């Protein structure tokens, strides 16, 4: 279905990534946001606070991130699309509730505008060091989807995509921005509402007495209902059966948790998204995501100028990780170079999938700024060697 025109600010804007994210959420139909101020994400909720009264949304600044991350889930069960926004320290606080959303299959979006860590770290400076936490941050087994925009335009586009994926798979989706992309001001083109594709919430439409909240009937994603429609549902974070009732047995655990993991894993082909450039003849493959993808470009161009065959694989969806593509490339390339603003996170996924067929070189950066392209170039040269 198409976006509600009420929320779409069609036109060309000169705004930063945070603000573009707000607009993307509104365009996607988000009408409930609970948040807590934390640099460098605060601008997202500030713009939401300004816009929501005029698009029929409710914004509430909750008392902390713990409250924000669960309030949005209450709003989802009340029938709204909901989002919360934070950065590293808040992201850590939200982990329990990301797990609750995964366990109860509550579609919602969590935005993490990453900054230097650990702990209070560098509040106003970028990093990409929450990427593994995005996959594994909550306790227990579950599948998750995480996206990585590299421009304010993508903050808008991927915000919409985040909502769509969360509804499609009834899973929390993490939009992993970073301070650089969030605070960078660029041209953002917002299309007409009829050009924006929205995935509506898939509500159950059958007989009330036959409804089983967590039955999948051969598929992988149960149909949802909302409170107030007379279904008298029960939702719990305890391991539950198809009725939603707690069933703390080995067999219930196997049935439920396996499905939560496989819901994403087995649908990975449909979910993964990456952009490739000059990969056909590549000897060295530079694998990037987020802002680093832009910093890598001058390094790759310089290397190409010097006759090196360098390709660029940019992850748009970071989780689920594009295992198949990396596995395939590992057989044809001579090396991977993975620059990221951390001391090694996604590089381990590349290594895992390369399975020894190709060496993988990390270009780390502790955070606080983006890489110097020269460091990426040097790594390319090193691996070409």
């Amino acid at each position, binding site marked *: 279905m198409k976006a509600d025109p009420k929320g779409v600010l069609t036109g060309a804007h000169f705004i930063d990534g945070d603000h573009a994210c707000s607009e993307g959420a509104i365009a996607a139909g988000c009408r409930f946001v609970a948040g807590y101020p934390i640099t460098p994400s605060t601008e997202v909720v500030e713009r939401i606070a300004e816009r929501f*009264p005029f698009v029929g949304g*409710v914004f509430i600044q909750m008392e902390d991130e713990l409250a924000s991350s669960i309030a949005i889930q209450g709003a989802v*069960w009340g029938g709204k699309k909901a989002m919360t926004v934070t950065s590293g320290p808040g992201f850590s606080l939200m982990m329990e509730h990301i797990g609750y959303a995964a366990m109860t299959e509550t579609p919602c979006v969590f935005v993490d505008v990453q900054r230097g860590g650990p702990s209070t770290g560098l509040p106003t400076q970028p990093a990409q060091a929450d990427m593994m936490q995005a996959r594994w941050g909550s306790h227990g087994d579950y599948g998750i989807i995480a996206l990585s925009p590299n421009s304010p335009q993508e903050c808008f586009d991927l915000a919409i995509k985040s909502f769509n994926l969360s509804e499609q798979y009834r899973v929390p989706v993490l939009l992993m921005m970073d301070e650089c992309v969030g605070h960078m001001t660029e041209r953002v083109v917002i299309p007409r509402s009829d050009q924006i594709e929205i995935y509506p919430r898939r509500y159950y439409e059958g007989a009330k007495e036959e409804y089983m909240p967590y039955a999948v009937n051969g598929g992988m994603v149960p149909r949802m209902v909302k409170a107030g429609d007379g279904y008298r549902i*029960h939702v*719990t974070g305890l391991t539950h059966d198809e009725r939603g009732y707690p069933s703390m047995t080995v067999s219930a655990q196997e049935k439920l948790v396996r499905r939560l993991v496989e819901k994403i894993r087995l649908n990975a082909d449909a979910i993964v998204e990456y952009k490739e450039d000059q990969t056909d003849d590549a000897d060295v493959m530079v694998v990037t995501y987020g802002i680093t993808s832009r910093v890598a470009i001058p390094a790759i161009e310089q290397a190409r100028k010097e006759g090196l065959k360098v390709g660029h694989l940019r992850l748009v969806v970071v989780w689920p990780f594009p295992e198949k593509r990396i596995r395939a490339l590992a057989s044809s390339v001579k090396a991977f170079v993975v620059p990221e603003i951390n001391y090694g996170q996604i590089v381990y996924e590349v290594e895992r999938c390369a399975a020894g067929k190709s060496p993988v070189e990390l270009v780390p950066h502790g955070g606080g700024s983006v890489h110097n392209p020269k460091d990426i170039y040097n790594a390319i040269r090193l691996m070409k060697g």
Partner: protein
Amino acid sequence: MADELYEIEEAVPVNTVEAYLRTDRLPHIWCPGCGIGTTVNCFAHALETSGLDLDKVAVVSGIGCTGRVAGYTNLDSFHTTHGRAIPFATGLKLANPRLKVVVYSGDGDLTAIGGNHFIHAARRNLDMTVILVNNFIYGMTGGQVAPTTPLTATATTAPYGNFEQPFNLPYLAESSGAVYVARWTSYHVRHVTKAIKEALAKKGFSFVEILAPCPTLFNRRNKLGDGLDQMIYYRENSEIRNGADTKTIGLGFQGKIIVGKFVDSERPTYLDMMNEYYRKKFGDTYEEYRG
């Protein structure tokens, strides 16, 4: 005068409160003599005469023995994370203001880990009914000290006796801004039922504290007998003082219990404030938010 004769219907009526329960899950998990079941009984009776559309009543609970209430009510029910029933309920209510949202949880869940959310929801006067069952202990996890454990009572994490001053919950609720505050014990079944009914009908943050026995942990550890002994203690030591100053009604260890309705005031709710404020500021360009 001729003898009057009466015909007696032999058909046995059903227990009407069962309609409000998930009877397929009974018997429930609470211990013999635990007071939580009694409070749920009162809740069901209150719902029965409340006139509410039950499809629109949602129960949100946290983690703990009382947190299991959500699972036994035949309503849209949400068993959330420890301490976070109130913020979940906040989102639920704001997303659909037509819902009647009831938070039903325990003393540890709502005032320890959930304390922050409790005071903010009361401050905001969010329209919800909070039923707090106070058994002075963390029951589900084996009997640890709670912010409501009276001075000198023992618990597994206060093995020599609690030396921390407990909360006076009605005082906390009132000072945070609750518009309805009452305390009863699970002995006072008719009062509890009436208080819940009033709290459900009330607009704003309504708070009902219900003391309940925890025979397995609080009672046993403190050598207070079983659930029945505690109910008799409630009967013998409660004093009804409606309108009492909440500052003065703190609870000691097996001391006097002041029960009653302490606060019943009026204050605009969060959504009332929001809509009124934006209407004033923006006039007709603002469309009132109704969900």
